């Protein structure tokens, strides 16, 4: 399982999918989030391993 951090939550998802697929599975728009793994930006086309950890960062700011 892959540990996904998003905002203040942490969830687990099956791996072996691309980050783009993960973002869509979570009901998010690939335009509005970026993925960071071990402190490094990774492209949405990156395929996740069976397990691991990934942080999704919302890029929409408002006001």
């Amino acid at each position, binding site marked *: 399982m892959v540990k996904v951090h998003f905002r203040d939550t942490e969830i687990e998802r099956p791996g072996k999918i691309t980050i783009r697929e993960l973002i869509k599975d979570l009901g998010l728009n*690939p335009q509005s989030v*970026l993925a960071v793994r071990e402190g490094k*930006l990774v*492209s*949405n*086309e990156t*395929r996740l391993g069976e397990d691991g950890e990934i942080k999704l960062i919302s*890029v929409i*700011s*408002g006001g």
Partner: protein
Amino acid sequence: MGVHRCRKCAADSVINMPQHRLALCASHFVEWVEKSTLDFIGKHRMFEPQDRVLVAVSGGKDSLSLWRILLNLGFHADGLYIDLGIDAGCAYSKRSGDYVRNFAQNLAPDVRLHILDLASAYGRAVPELAGRRAGGRKKLCSVCGLVKRHEMNRIAHELGYDAIVTGHNLDDEAAVLFGNTLRWDVEYLVRQSPVLPGAALGLAKRVKPLARFYERETAAYAIVSNIDYIEDECPFSKGATSIRYKEVLNSMEAGSPGTKLQFYYSFLRARKKEIFPGYDRPDLQPCEKCGQATGIPGLCAFCRLTDPEKAGGQ
């Protein structure tokens, strides 16, 4: 589909920008952002290499990235942080200020960070100026905007900067444009521009060098440049219409990449052709107290708002 290769080298890309058909690795992305910013500054004649500019920094990804980009490009760019005094149970302004100060610590010694603390300067910060019972977020944000505008102008004028530089990105601009177009608000459409020329009576030139980048690109720049920025939004931005507009535009963008870029760029081209003639700025006069331009005789809106006699009233 595997990870795209960087267009400039063979490394794995960290970002893919379908609207430009461009995927880049971290170092080539940084290079691309900085070069594109320089081109955009030149194209819109924002400022010249010898100018001194004042970057309005909030602690967020856009303004800190902008400051870093301008310094990397060799511009003389100082920062201005306005402490709005917004707490809302999450110490928002205090934490934002910490990010700004932390960022500024690692800059060359000749780069300055100016900090204005509204509460110490005027006895009241944004929430108090907006009035406790004043109708919620809308009033607060309009007071906040008014205060920021006035104070940026005042400080830029007093310290002799050539331009105020803000971190607005293309998504910000497209969202504003979307709202203005939905209402066909011609007065606002006429004035929406990445460059607002300066004017007499203490109105500084205001420019937006990042207005050509998508929000995810400014965030990506901050991440690959290891800029530590406040990820949380101002608590009062929750439910703002601008965020809903951004979401609408992003869902269109997901289906057809380039939608946002085209929407904004076509507007800039149309604007150049003066499709909205006859909407000139109203006549302005100096405020009796601070001297800054105002549309109404007497005190400007800021001076009326911060009038000490009105403290505690309303």
